[in-house]
Structures are given as C-alpha cells and as structure tokens.
C-alpha cells in the first residue's frame, strides 16, 4: 500500500519536473521569475481539453492531437509573454517583469473563467479532459498502478531526455548555456542573445504545455486556477533542486511527487501544502543552495 503510493507519487512527480524545468530554464537565461508560467500551463491544458473533446476523446489519435495542441499553445504563449512582459522591460530590474507577468496571469485566469462559462464545450469550474487512458491500469504483482500515471511518466522522461540532448549536444542548446553563463561574453562570441532568450521561452513554455496536457489527462479535468497551484509546487521543486539547475528540477519534481503522496497517505491531504512549504522553508534556511546542488553558487 505504502509502496504503491510511493511509486504513484514518483510517476506523477515527473509532471512536476516538467513544470519546474520550464520555470528554471527561463530563470537560468534571463534571471527573472516568470509568474505567468502557471497560467501558460492552464491555457495549454484547456487547448488540449478542447481538441480532445472535439475529437471525441476516446481514441489515441485524439490524445496525440490534444498533446500537440497543448505543446503548440504553450510555446506560442511563451513567445507572446516574452515579447509583451519581458522584452520591453529588459533594463527595469526584477520587480517590473514580476508585475507584468502577474498582470498577464490575472488576465488569462479571468479570461478562462469567463470562457469556461460561455464556450459550450467547456464547463464552469472544471472542464473534463477525456482520454482513452482513463480505464487503463497495470498490476505488477500485488502493486496496482494507474495506467495514465505510467504513460505520463514515460512521456515526461522522454521529453526530459530530448531536452537534455538539446541542451548538451546541439548548437542552439550550447548557445543557451553560454548565455546562462555570461550574456555579455555570449554576445561577443556572436550569439544572438535575444533569439536565445526567445528560444528558451518557447521551449520552456512548450514543456509547460506538455505538462498541462499530461496533468489534465491524469486528473481528468482542467480549471482556470489550476496553474497557480502548479506554480507554487514548481517553487518548491526549484528550491530543492537549486534555482536555474535543470537536472535539479528533474530530481526535485520526483522528490516533491513522492513527498506529496506520502503526506496524503500517512497524514492527510489537507496538510499537503503545509508539508511542502515547510520543507521549502527548511531547505532554504539550512541549505540555501538547494539540496541537490553540488557546489555553492553566489545567490543574488
């Protein structure tokens, strides 16, 4: 029973990894928090749900189409957010983009609150995300696993592997790491820093879109305020993994997934967030560079 919760938490935690990787990728490149990251997830999840509902929702083809729709929506929205909320405020300090992305969050959440009442295929409060994975389940000996968790875990790991390949092996991935290290030197080496930033936003938000689709499928519903909660969870993940570290975010997401499901099974679902944030606070005060960070970095 406990082992079952542990494994399910680990599987679902992979989606938290995806969310947090996107967040940390953007932070690594421009050193600003993208508060609209949560809203990006929400909008992409709605896009996926809409496609899935329109296509009947019970075939794997429909699911694939929904996934593509979510990723595309996420990436597009990410580019828009970079253009509107970050590009004009490049020299304005860290507070200004915090405020503009918060403004965009308010706009998108209210818009989808409104849309979910007006658009006929949506429902007020929670819109269902139909998928053929709903009834799938696996039995590994005495352990029961939700099929959808296994699928989202595999997809999430595949996406992370692709991301790892991009960051480590490709030209544009290397350009991004150079900008992370030192934007000025990157510019002197002929790297188009503006384009790297835009790429980072597109990739990070595309991952957020993928996470939105996966979470929507596994929960079964999407709602206008689902992003805020995920944003909070990704804060915990990046603190565990170290702000700006992609590998830290991967592991941190799995840890948070396990901690969450353990809290629910041992304590109560009501204390889920208190435990997570208590953990965040303790980690920050005792080991500010993150649990998983290998070396101390100057945090400023």
């Amino acid at each position, binding site marked *: 029973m406990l082992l079952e919760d542990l494994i399910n938490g680990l599987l679902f935690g992979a989606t938290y990894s995806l969310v947090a990787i996107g967040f940390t990728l953007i932070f690594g490149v421009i050193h600003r928090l993208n508060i609209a990251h949560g809203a990006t997830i929400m909008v992409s999840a709605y896009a996926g749900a809409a496609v899935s509902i329109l296509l009947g929702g019970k075939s794997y083809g429909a699911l694939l189409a929904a996934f593509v729709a979510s990723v595309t929506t996420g990436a597009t929205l990410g580019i828009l957010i970079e253009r509107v909320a970050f590009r004009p405020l490049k020299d*304005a300090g860290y507070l200004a983009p*915090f*405020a503009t992305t918060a*403004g*965009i969050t308010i706009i998108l959440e209210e818009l989808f609150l409104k849309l979910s009442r007006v658009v006929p295929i949506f429902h007020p409060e929670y819109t269902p995300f139909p998928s053929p994975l709903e009834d799938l389940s696996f039995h590994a000996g005495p352990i029961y696993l939700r099929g959808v968790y296994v699928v989202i875990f595999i997809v999430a790991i595949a996406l992370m592997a692709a991301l790892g390949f991009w960051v480590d092996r490709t030209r544009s991935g290397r350009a991004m790491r150079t900008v992370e290290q030192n934007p000025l030197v990157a510019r002197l080496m002929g790297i188009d820093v503006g384009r790297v930033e835009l790429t980072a936003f597109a990739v990070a938000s595309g991952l957020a879109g993928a996470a939105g689709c996966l979470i929507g499928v596994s929960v079964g519903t999407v709602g206008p305020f689902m992003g805020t909660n995920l944003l909070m969870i990704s804060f915990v993940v990046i603190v565990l993994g170290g702000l700006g570290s992609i590998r830290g975010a991967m592991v941190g997401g799995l840890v948070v997934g396990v901690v969450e499901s353990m809290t629910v099974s041992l304590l109560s679902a009501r204390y889920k967030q208190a435990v997570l944030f208590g953990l965040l606070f303790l980690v920050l*005060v005792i080991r*500010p560079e993150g649990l998983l960070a290998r070396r101390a970095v100057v945090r400023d």
Partner: protein
Amino acid sequence: MGYATTILSLAGLNVLFALSVYITFAIGQFSLAQVGFWALGAYGTAMLTTLWGWPLWPALLASGGVCALLGIALGYPCLRLRGFYLALATLGFSETVRVLFQNLEYQIPLKGVPSGPSGVLGFRNVAVTTGIWDIFGFMLVLVILLVWLNHSRIGLAVAATREDDVVAPFMGINIVFAKVAAFMLAAMAAGIGGGLYAGFTSYISPDDFGFHMTLLGILFVAIGGTRTFYGPMLAAAILTVLPEFFRFLAEYRLIFYGALVVVLMTLRPRGLIDERVDAAVRRWFARKPREA
C-alpha cells in the same frame, strides 16, 4: 455604510498593506511574508473581538505585537537568504499560515450560534468594529513614523543597507539589527492592517490570503516604485479606486485590471514614483534659497 465610505476604507486597507510590503523592500529585502502576517492579524483580531469581546484597539495591538515577535523570529533565519530565495522562503511562510487556518476549527457558542474559525469555510460574523477613522488613523501613524525614520540616521542606515549591504557594515551600520527591525515593523503593520480588515469585512476566509494577495502586494510596490513610501501608497489607491470607474465592464473588470497593470508597468518600468519624480518632490519640499 455609504458607497464612497466603503471604497475609501477598502483603498485605505490596501494602502496599509502596500506600506507593510514597502517596509521590507525599503531595506532591500524581497519578502512575501506580509500576507501571512496579514492573515494572522485578521484571525487574531477577529477571535479577540468576536469570541472574547475585546475592544478593537487592544485586540489590534495584541495581534500586531504577536506578529512583531513572529517577524523577529522569521527575520533572523531569513538573514541568510537573498533575492528570490528570500522571496520563496517567505512565500513558504505565508502559505503555511494559510494552510494552518484552513485546518483551524475553534468554535464557541455565541447567542446559541457556534462562532469562530471553521476551517476552509472561514470565519463568519466577525464583529464589525473597524471604522474608516481607525483605518486612516493608523495610516497617519505609519506615515508619520516613516517620514520621521526617513529623516533620521535610521533612514540613512536603511538606505545604505538597501544600496549595498556589504559596504554598509563598514560604515558602522548594524545591518542585522536594521534588517530584523524592518522585518518586525513590516510584520506589525501587516498584523494590525489585517486586524482592521477583519473588523471591516465581517467575514474572513483562508482563501482570501492566498497567492493572489501576495501578487497584489508586489503589484503595489512595483507600480508605485520602491524608491519612496508614498509611491506604493499611490499605486494601492489607484488600483483600488480606478477599477470602480470601470463598473460598466462588469465581468471583464478583472481582465481590464490585469491589462492596466501591464500597461502601467511598461510605461513606467521603475514605478510611478521613480528617481526623477522623487527628486522633483524633494526639490519642492526643500527650503527655497533666499534671493540675494
């Protein structure tokens, strides 16, 4: 209570919240703990006045005092953290407080009706004790305190710590004391403000004190500018009163609100009251040179 009085009171409460957020920013600390203290003050005051019949101000001072002590307790461990790490740790504090009140069930019968905090359902029928003069009276006290601090050695110490907390100690400034004191003052202001809010609305719920309120506090400071204390006050007043003129937008009002935030921020990236406006205001108040 009339419509104008209600709007003015709401604006006043938001201004108090903006001031408490500003106080930590003034010393260069990106703290998101204010919502937590606001919630503690609201619940504390509501319980003291409603359940045990305390008058408003003793209840406010008691909750404010508790928040001040907690502010010290939170301020010390947070000294190790900087920038976004401090923001995330203090956000953790605010969220933990919210979850605490989501799980707090304490009710005693009052006139046959069980009253008190009841978890996620919140605290209904809080005694309405706050008048508009309580709000603006406390605001005046805070403003006088801030003006006095700005013109004292403490204000200079705070500014020096904000600009460079590595150099400040070499000038004989005790930055540990300065930072913890700012944390404490901000916590106390938020605690009393939250108490006034509880006595004003008569209904408080843990979900009022979530991440959205945290964002609101940052909006006040970002749009007003962190340079002066009256910048965030101005931003809080504008962001409370201006949407009232757009009542015809009805359900789209919050969308407009978000757009207003984006536009204001893009037009004034360093806040409404930035260095240049601040300098102009200072010149205005400075003693005019005598004509020779």
